[in-house]
């Protein structure tokens, strides 16, 4: 057993454990933290496969952005954990059935008769850059789906703004730009009045 294999089994064990804990953890914050651990070890596995760009993106995007957002939401929502766990035992048979079914299907895919998928990954030459390869593929062979994905993001932006942006009239909000342009005449009114009350 060489060193790489050892690292693989080490990471894979942590990944499986973390994945299991995501589902079984009692507290949603713990579950989210275990998910972070799962992503992190997953990124480690990708590094083993020399897919360093994907590994770094996974850490940056999923752990750095998505999971932090997730944690914020979980912490802010003040979830009633006991109530959420109510359905656990009644849903367990169905969930177990679906889980087992998926496990069977995955093993079927991996053991297709007369064909092995995912043959042993072999190491690349020294000058190989995964990032460069990925970039080359995305901007050449896969440029059409790449552009389409960009259009989908554009649609998401348009839709999000169209559905949520409201211009309310009559709200009492402050406009700093307008505030600093204030002149003396806007604020101070000089009223000429006699020094003493008349006709007393």
């Amino acid at each position, binding site marked *: 057993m060489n060193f790489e294999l050892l690292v693989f089994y080490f990471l894979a064990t942590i990944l499986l454990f973390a994945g299991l804990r995501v589902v079984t953890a009692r507290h949603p914050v713990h579950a989210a933290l275990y998910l972070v651990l799962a992503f992190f070890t997953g990124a480690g596995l990708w590094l083993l496969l020399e897919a360093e760009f994907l590994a770094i993106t996974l850490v940056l995007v999923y752990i750095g952005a998505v999971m932090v957002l997730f944690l914020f939401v979980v912490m802010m929502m003040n979830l009633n954990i006991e109530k959420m766990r109510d359905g656990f035992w009644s849903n367990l048979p169905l969930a177990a059935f679906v889980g087992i079914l998926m496990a069977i*299907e995955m093993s079927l895919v991996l053991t*297709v008769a007369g064909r092995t*998928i995912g043959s042993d990954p072999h190491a690349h030459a020294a000058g190989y850059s995964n990032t460069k390869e990925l970039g080359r593929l995305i901007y050449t062979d896969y440029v059409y789906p790449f552009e389409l*994905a960009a259009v989908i993001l554009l649609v998401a932006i348009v*839709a999000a703004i169209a559905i949520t942006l409201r211009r309310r009239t009559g709200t009492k909000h402050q406009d700093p730009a307008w505030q600093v342009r204030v002149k003396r005449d806007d604020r101070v009114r000089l009223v000429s009045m006699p020094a003493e009350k008349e006709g007393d």
Partner: protein
Amino acid sequence: MTFVTPNLIPALSEIFVLIMASLILVVDVFLSNRNRYISYALTQLTLLGAAWITISSGSTDVVYTFNGMFVGDVMANMLKMMTYLAVSAMLVYSRSYIQLRNLFTGEFFVLVLFAMLGMMVMISASHFLTLYLGLELLSLSLYSLVALQRDSAQATEAAMKYFVLGALASGLLLYGMSMIYGATGSLEISKVAAAIQHGDGGRTVLAFGLVFIVAGLAFKLGVVPFHMWIPDVYQGAPTAVTLFIGSAPKIAAFAFVMRLLAEGLNGLVHDWQGMLIIMAVLSMAIGNLAAIAQTNIKRMLAYSTISHMGFLLLGILSGTLNGYSSSMFYVLAYVLMSLGSFGMILLLSRKGFEAENLDDFKGLNQRKPWYAFMLLLIMFSMAGVPPTVGFYAKLSVLQAALSAGYLWLVVFAVLMSVIGAFYYLRIIKLMYFDAPLDQAPIESQPDSSMLISLNGMAVLALGILPQPLMALCAYSIQKSLL
């Protein structure tokens, strides 16, 4: 590491639509509400331009570009032309409706154009990845169009349901595609077909993947048992959006089924035939029976859509070129009828009033005889009464199913369409033999009332002379699926 610039000519119409949609997005920001019609005009011009490009750049050969991810063939060109036509008609019908409901905004047009771009991508996809991305582009635009009327609780609920179920369907579809990829080692439709023909990959895995793919497709088509979103979305969405969902995306869904089942998984025809038979039988039964009980016409038409999609499957499940072309004819005829029927709801609606209950159609003959006659033609066509186009559409898919040897299925379909005739004819009865409940004058724009006349006449004309369109469908299928 050489890179050949892909041939952009076949995808010119997609590129044009994308550029115009982005342009309208920017131009609209600078328009005041009074000048909003400029966005509308630009959208219509986009459709016209795209049609011109598709005609002038279309060839009769099958052309692949973008590294085998995009295919241009006769079927794609023809379906795209029909999509432009349907979207354009939808915009004309809904113009005054959306103006009165504060939906006459740039976002509406931009989202419609992006949805159409998604349909075009689906129609021209030759790769699972582009099929999926096109579908997502279409679906995301549709979800947001449904939700655009954000102060309406009904529309928001419909959008939510549509989004959740649509996401589920996409997940199923992706899962199925990943299994097919696992079994054949490719995502390119022609390579998948070749691998299956060659006998690569385990039958079990392929069948598993197929089940998920068919389930995902069934969601998108809206056939039983994956139909539950259709009535709620059709009823909850603003009628203009319902008209949109009910028309052009059906063409794209047909193309989607063709690309996946008839081109990619043709080698598994015996496996998917059985699944489609079950879904067709259930759709025709549940769609027609449930439609009888509806009092809301949008909901009734939603169930009628379900039954029509069941009929559409009859042609596809026969698995022959003849069956595919009759299904293509069916979907085009259906889009025509769907445009007319939802268009009529839009025409009869006015500010603060939706003509969405069956009772609103009472005595239409006394209020506006010409409209009543047009709706009569469209309803006859939906029911499949000769000499309207719906009759020939039904006849051709039934012939296809019969020639594939499914006599019992044909008998069942005919029985179901007899049951279905009841609720279509009920509308005609309401229009001609009942007294109107509502005497308010029907105000209509000249463009949309002209269009409804054209629409009704087309239903009749294509019914009397179905041969040219049928020949066109047969020709495009023959040219594309070889």
